[in-house]
């Protein structure tokens, strides 16, 4: 299981724009590098990150080999209601990781 971290404020005012930061532990092997003996190292990257807020999709990103190892993605959303934010990363070789964070809106 890959190590993933999300940073969501625990509490926010209704209508406030909050910043969400996500980090996934992954080498993001580009598929363009070679070993010392000249063999190509196969590509192994995270392809997508999807974030849902109480079941509704609020953000989706498509990643490419040009994203650095341990992809950090940060974005914003409006705090509409209390609930949970679900994050799902999927990638090559069947990579999949999920994480959720609770938010309280006052």
């Amino acid at each position, binding site marked *: 299981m890959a190590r993933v971290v999300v940073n969501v404020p625990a509490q926010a005012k209704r209508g406030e724009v909050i910043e969400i930061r996500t980090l996934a532990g992954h080498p993001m092997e580009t598929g363009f590098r070679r*070993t010392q003996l000249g063999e190509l190292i196969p590509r192994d990257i995270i392809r997508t990150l999807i974030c849902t807020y109480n079941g509704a999709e609020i953000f989706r990103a498509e990643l490419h080999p040009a994203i*650095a190892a341990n992809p950090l993605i940060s974005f914003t959303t409006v705090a509409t209601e209390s609930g949970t934010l679900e994050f799902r990363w999927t990638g090559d070789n069947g990579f999949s990781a999920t994480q959720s964070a609770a938010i309280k809106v006052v």
Partner: protein
Amino acid sequence: MISRRTFLLLGVAASAAHAQLPPNIQEIRKKALDEAIRKVVGNAQVRQGKVKLDIPPLIDNGNAVPLAVEVESPMTEADHVKAIHIFTERNPQPYVVTAHLGPRAGRARIATRARIGDTGTVMAIAQMSDGSFWSDSVRVIVTLSACLEEGLI
């Protein structure tokens, strides 16, 4: 410890890798970038402005370059940013990231860390809900390329 034989083999492998780069690599990469942009924007016109790409102009280490894109937009149902695309000119592939946003984002701002292969232009294109495209590009200088890191065993 690398033996003399392995070392020689490495030399052969390295020169073979170099030989694979065609002489007109500049044109090929320019074409790949143009094609990638065309695929995103179609026949629409890409205008300068509204988008602010924040990336250091001088990059020491191309393996993890912090960059942020902010687009001027009220982010309402009627007028919002649908997607932000980032491209680089000198990587093996022009694509970096595509982020899909909506009115619930509140603010059109994303940040990430990218690999930048070589000195060249980095470009951000924002796709608005009215179908228009806006862009910003920054020329960056890279001292340590992302693609030249030490290979694995």
